[in-house]
């Protein structure tokens, strides 16, 4: 998974797989600029931090995919999403391709709050649930000529996302995301 952020990313299993824990932390993530020079997180990165990084990577990957639906692939998206989230994205990309529409600009994760961390147990994957505030004010849909596809519609600003990430083969993947427009987060 391509995750290279200031707050780190996960490339290994969560360090704490013991007793059930539930933590609530808040992290404010500034506008993120991916950089291959960023240090990779170690395997000891805690699940909450790794999941936050994975979500930011997910948002960026979705931006890239929506920005160029014709070239977006399932393989790319499956590096950041799985389960219902992946299915949702693929269906959206189909629609974008069909209408020859793409996204211009990108979203920014403004805030993430981890609601719970569940370690793996039996067949159960390790999971993280978090809330996030995503700023879409610099993101819009345009047609092939670059014209706004939804002219006259109210601009989208902020979205409150409820996110479920699962630890899957060493990566944290977004399995489910609810993204509801809000006026403030």
């Amino acid at each position, binding site marked *: 998974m391509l995750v290279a952020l200031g707050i780190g990313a996960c490339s290994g299993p969560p360090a704490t797989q013991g007793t*059930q824990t*539930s933590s609530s932390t808040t992290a404010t993530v500034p506008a993120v600029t991916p950089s291959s020079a960023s240090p990779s997180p170690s395997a000891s990165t805690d699940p909450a931090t790794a999941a936050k990084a994975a979500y930011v990577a997910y948002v960026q990957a*979705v931006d890239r995919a*929506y920005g160029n639906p014709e070239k977006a692939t399932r393989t790319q998206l499956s590096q950041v999403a*799985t*389960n*219902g989230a*992946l*299915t*949702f*994205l*693929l*269906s*959206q990309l189909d*629609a*974008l391709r069909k*209408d020859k*529409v793409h996204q211009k600009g990108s*979203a920014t994760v403004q805030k993430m709050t981890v609601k*719970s961390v*569940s370690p793996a*147990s*039996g*067949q*159960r*994957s390790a*999971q993280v*649930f978090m*809330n996030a505030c*995503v700023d*879409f004010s610099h*993101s819009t*849909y345009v047609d092939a000529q670059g014209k706004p*596809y*939804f002219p006259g*519609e*109210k601009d*989208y600003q902020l*979205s*409150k996302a*409820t996110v*479920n990430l*699962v630890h*899957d*083969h060493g990566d944290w993947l977004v*399995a*489910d*995301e*609810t*993204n*509801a*427009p*809000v*006026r403030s987060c």
Partner: protein
Amino acid sequence: MLKKLIALLTTMAATVLVATSVLLPTPHAVAATSQQKSSIDKGPTEPHDATTPKCNQRDFRCRDEQHRNGGPPRAEPGSKGGGGGKTQPCVSSATGKKLPCTSQWGSWSNDRQCYLRLDPAPSQPAPSGTTSRWYLCHRLDRDPAAGGVDIDILLNEAPSIDPGKLALDILAELQLQKIRIGITPEEGKTGLLGLPTYLWVDNPGARTLGPISDSATEGNVTVTLTAKVDHVTWSLGDGTTITCTGAGTPYQDSFGAAPSPTCGHMYSKPSTGLPGGSYPVSATSVWRVDWTGGGEAGFIPFEITSTGRVRISEAQALN
């Protein structure tokens, strides 16, 4: 034995339902229902008003439909996208192969690409003040050597719970019983030709005649089932079949040679020449089983048969 019988009959009833009734959704229809319901999974965390958009930014399909129609979007805010409403097979998007719509892990969700079932032991409580429940999303495409993995998912809607199947579960739990045949002359004794034969249910009760009712809840689907014997069909072994409603009237000595006021028969030939020297008698209790729940309703054909023998002679009855 009885449980086996009931299980068998229940299976037969299920077969009849699937084969003949349109009241129960087919497995594919169930899956489609799940998909439709999944579009309202996990409602928005904040109410919407005229100042907030109806579709989330990532849901292009929703926005597109809203834009084209100038009306309500196809999906609710915060949802995963459009419903569609078409009946679809259960398919793994990874392999393209069809899958059983139900399995030991629950009901397949094309939307989430996993089998969903209620989490019997969630690792954390569902948020208070909501109808959300924790489900286990069992994925097959990861770690198949371990039989797949479970992922906790918080859902507002129960995924693809089949109320008809739940009704069958309730029926099995009720353990309806066959009737004990009440008959004169009673088994082991010999009756006289020309005297009336009384037929009745010797063990009347809720589980033999009903009415009996029970409910069960799975997810947020509650099914209530009511069972009652509609009639008992008596086969008397001499080619006569009669149908009686109710339990019949137990014979009393004071009735003498009077025929049964509710359910009886008069043999015209002795049973002496028959195998065992007696008439084979069977009583089939035909139940009317109705259920309602999950926005649906239906009935389940259900029958249980009891058997016995009756000896009729021209000679003086011998004890």
